[in-house]
């Protein structure tokens, strides 16, 4: 049996970096709390031996009821690991020790990595790791993960197999101690379980009966101390962490650093800086992304699609192959220009630590939409492409916020929809009309945000966000992270794109399109005031929103759309296209991030919204 170990620690302490280094796998690393959402597994080979390693989400404490904490807690209880590797940020030793003390209570062999020793030294904190090791009773390895310093020692220590169980125990208040003892004795709980039970923290191994009894004890303690057991336990741990940190830290005068926060987190000039950064990212990606997409599509058309069609295969194979090429084009046309470019910028913002400051400043505005500061990022991204925007909702702390943000992101006009709006409305009707579509969408987004924030279940928590340290981003990390997002996107969106594209191709081959057009024509004319071919073009927009525009021109047999459709019809077409059903790639990402049920609900909601508004416009305009 290979030994099994897990990395555990606060957010942004370098767990993922160490994991990458040891396993050689690519896991996203960032300077923003909460990047690792699930548990990652990998195998570490060192010499001719190996062990399995898990990368757990970053948490500040094992107690508490957030999703990540529960995940880590249950993982530790369910998986009988051979060894825990705690990663500490040396610069913020005291805060990190708070979690470490709880990890030590799990009574597993424990290896402590004291990471970011370089930053701690720069901040004037010299830490005596030998003394810390002595007090904890386990080995402490000082390291600098960004340059791989001492990381091989970790593998060596794990494989040596004689890492001890920590000896340090937290001196709890005597009432707590007594309660823990009796819970342990009566119900056979471990010490951590008894402590969780006392603090009313949901754990799968604690039965309702135990919970009820510990609640009675907890109330008794609360009455005596005028503090809940949860608070007392936390205070005991923090006190020990403070003593421990003080006893091993020697302070030297810190190297002087410029305090950029004086600029970045004030209303002025912080907000203008934030606005400039966001708008310029949007503009760069918008223009550069457009050019790149066009290049990719035209290159693929010239060098793959056209030669393929020139082969003169039998019509069935030709249709099928064409559909596959079309799907590849749609996927790559989003992946590199938008997902990759956006993530290059966002990674830079994340890794410099600016993103947390942006979230702080944006908190106020986001409140109105039922979101917190962290919600700014998906909103800004959504103007470029809904796909990376929805992927970024995982930065949000609660599930209800993630769902609200996903709905709003799906509704906001991405660059593809902008192409449709500008290509159809602005060029054939006028800028005012194009602008009015934007205005309608924004009003709707605002209304939906207000309504959702009221009706979505789950309590509204205020933002409590650790400000990441400002540091210089490392180019290779940034590129690697953007590349990983692209890979992830292609991996989840490609199958769906292929299936739907082939499906539409086959439809066309068996002349079902014409039948569909005939069938839909009366309905479409009655409801939206659009001819059947325009509605079919809308359906193609599901593959890629610009395709609605392209297909419309193809189906109409002319690029002068004004000749075949009236101004009102063009307006309705663009409006419906902007609102109804997100593209396949977006649906794929929605399914991944919010689950199938919510993805289906959002899709149906946008469909109703699009058709409903189209009908309304039809009644008013035609």
């Amino acid at each position, binding site marked *: 049996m290979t030994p099994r170990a897990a990395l555990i620690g606060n957010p942004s302490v370098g767990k993922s970096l160490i994991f990458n280094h040891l396993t050689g796998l690519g896991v996203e690393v960032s300077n923003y709390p909460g990047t690792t959402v699930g548990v990652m597994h990998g195998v570490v080979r060192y010499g001719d031996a190996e062990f399995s390693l898990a990368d757990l989400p970053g948490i500040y404490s094992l*107690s508490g009821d957030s999703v990540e904490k529960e995940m880590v807690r249950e993982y530790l209880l369910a998986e009988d690991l051979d060894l825990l590797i705690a990663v500490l940020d040396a610069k913020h030793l005291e805060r990190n020790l708070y979690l470490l003390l709880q990890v030590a209570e799990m009574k597993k062999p424990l290896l402590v990595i004291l990471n970011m020793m370089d930053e701690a030294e720069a901040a004037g904190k010299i830490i005596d790791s030998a003394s810390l090791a002595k007090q904890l009773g386990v080995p402490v390895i000082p390291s600098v993960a960004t340059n791989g310093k001492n990381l091989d020692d970790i593998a060596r220590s794990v494989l040596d197999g004689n890492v001890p169980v920590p000896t340090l125990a937290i001196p709890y208040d005597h009432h707590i101690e007594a309660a823990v003892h009796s819970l342990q004795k009566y119900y056979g709980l471990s010490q951590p379980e008894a402590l969780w039970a006392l603090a009313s923290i949901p754990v799968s191994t604690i039965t309702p009966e135990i919970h009820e009894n510990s609640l009675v004890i907890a109330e008794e303690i609360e009455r005596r101390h005028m503090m809940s057991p949860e608070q007392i336990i*936390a*205070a005991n741990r923090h006190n020990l962490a403070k003593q421990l940190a003080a006893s091993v830290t020697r302070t030297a005068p810190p190297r002087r650093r410029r305090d950029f926060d004086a600029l970045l987190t*004030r209303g002025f000039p912080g907000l203008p800086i934030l606005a400039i950064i966001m708008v310029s990212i949007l503009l760069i990606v918008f223009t550069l992304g457009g050019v790149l997409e066009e290049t990719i599509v035209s290159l693929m058309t010239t060098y793959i699609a056209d030669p393929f069609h020139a082969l003169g295969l039998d019509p069935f194979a030709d249709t099928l192959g064409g559909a596959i090429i079309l799907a590849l084009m749609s996927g790559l046309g989003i992946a590199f220009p938008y997902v990759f470019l956006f993530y290059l910028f966002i990674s830079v913002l994340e890794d410099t630590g600016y993103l947390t400051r942006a979230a702080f400043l944006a908190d106020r505005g986001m*409140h109105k939409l039922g979101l917190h500061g962290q919600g700014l990022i998906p909103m800004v991204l959504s103007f470029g492409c809904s796909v990376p925007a929805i992927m970024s909702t995982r930065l949000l702390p609660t599930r209800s916020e993630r769902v609200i943000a996903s709905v709003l992101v799906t509704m906001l006009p991405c660059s593809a929809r902008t192409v449709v709006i500008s290509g159809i409305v602005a060029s054939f009707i006028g800028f005012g009309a194009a602008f009015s579509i934007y205005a309608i969408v924004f009003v709707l987004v605002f209304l939906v945000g207000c309504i959702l924030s009221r009706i979505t279940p789950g309590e509204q928590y205020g933002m*409590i966000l650790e400000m990441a340290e400002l540091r210089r981003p490392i180019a290779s990390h940034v590129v690697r992270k953007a590349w990983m997002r692209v890979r992830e996107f292609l991996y989840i969106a490609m199958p769906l794109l292929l299936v739907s594209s082939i499906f539409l191709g086959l439809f066309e081959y068996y002349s079902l399109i014409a039948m569909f057009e005939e069938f839909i024509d009366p309905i479409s004319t009655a409801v939206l005031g659009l001819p059947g071919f325009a509605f079919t073009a809308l359906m193609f927009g599901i593959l890629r929103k610009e395709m609605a525009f392209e297909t419309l021109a193809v189906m109409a047999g002319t690029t002068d759309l004004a000749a075949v459709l009236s101004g009102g019809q063009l307006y309705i077409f663009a409006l419906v296209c902007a609102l109804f059903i997100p593209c396949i790639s977006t649906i794929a990402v929605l399914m991944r991030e919010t689950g199938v049920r919510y993805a289906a609900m959002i899709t149906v909601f946008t469909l109703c919204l699009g058709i409903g508004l189209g009908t309304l416009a039809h009644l008013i305009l035609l």
Partner: protein
Amino acid sequence: MTSVLSEDILEEILNSGTDEVLLHVLKLPHHTETEIEKALNTLVEHGFVHRGSKTVRLTEKGAEKAAQVARKHAVLETFLTDVLGKQPEAASREACILEHNISTETIERLDNFLDQRKPETVPLEKTEFTNHNNLTRKNPIIPLSECPEGSLLHVSMIRCFAKHSRLIDLGVIPGELITLRRKLVNNAVVITVKGCDIALSPEVSANIMVERCETP
């Protein structure tokens, strides 16, 4: 001046941990309704308590007074258990009686006395009340959102504690010293606690009760 009963009422409201307390929830055995009613009226008259139709709420002045009483209780209880070796429950009961008549000066002296004893004989959670002795207890207890930027603050209490359990994880607990680094017009704040900067929404910062410290 406040009577024994009114001090008990203030303490009860403080201990309930919420802003608005329903009148009938106040646990004050051994007192009749008319007595409580009378004491409450006096408290309202002196501006310690704000009274709604069915609820009561501490005013700033009341919160300060309540915290003083609570501190007296804690110091006395520590003394009775740790120095005199009484059973905790009996100690708590007796502290309840003593806390009303003991002078502030005696409490300070008793507190200093407890401070000077060897740290390991003092249970850890009690030290919260004795930490930072020279820095605090000269100023009123106010929400964090009302403090000016740059002030050094001593956390006295966190309201609606259960909602903000992440604050505990980050070390924002009663007794901790924090610095208010930044405050925006909407009362969103950045605080430094244990060397880390933490951003808080206005609704969070309004629930953290602090006392300003004179920088030593």
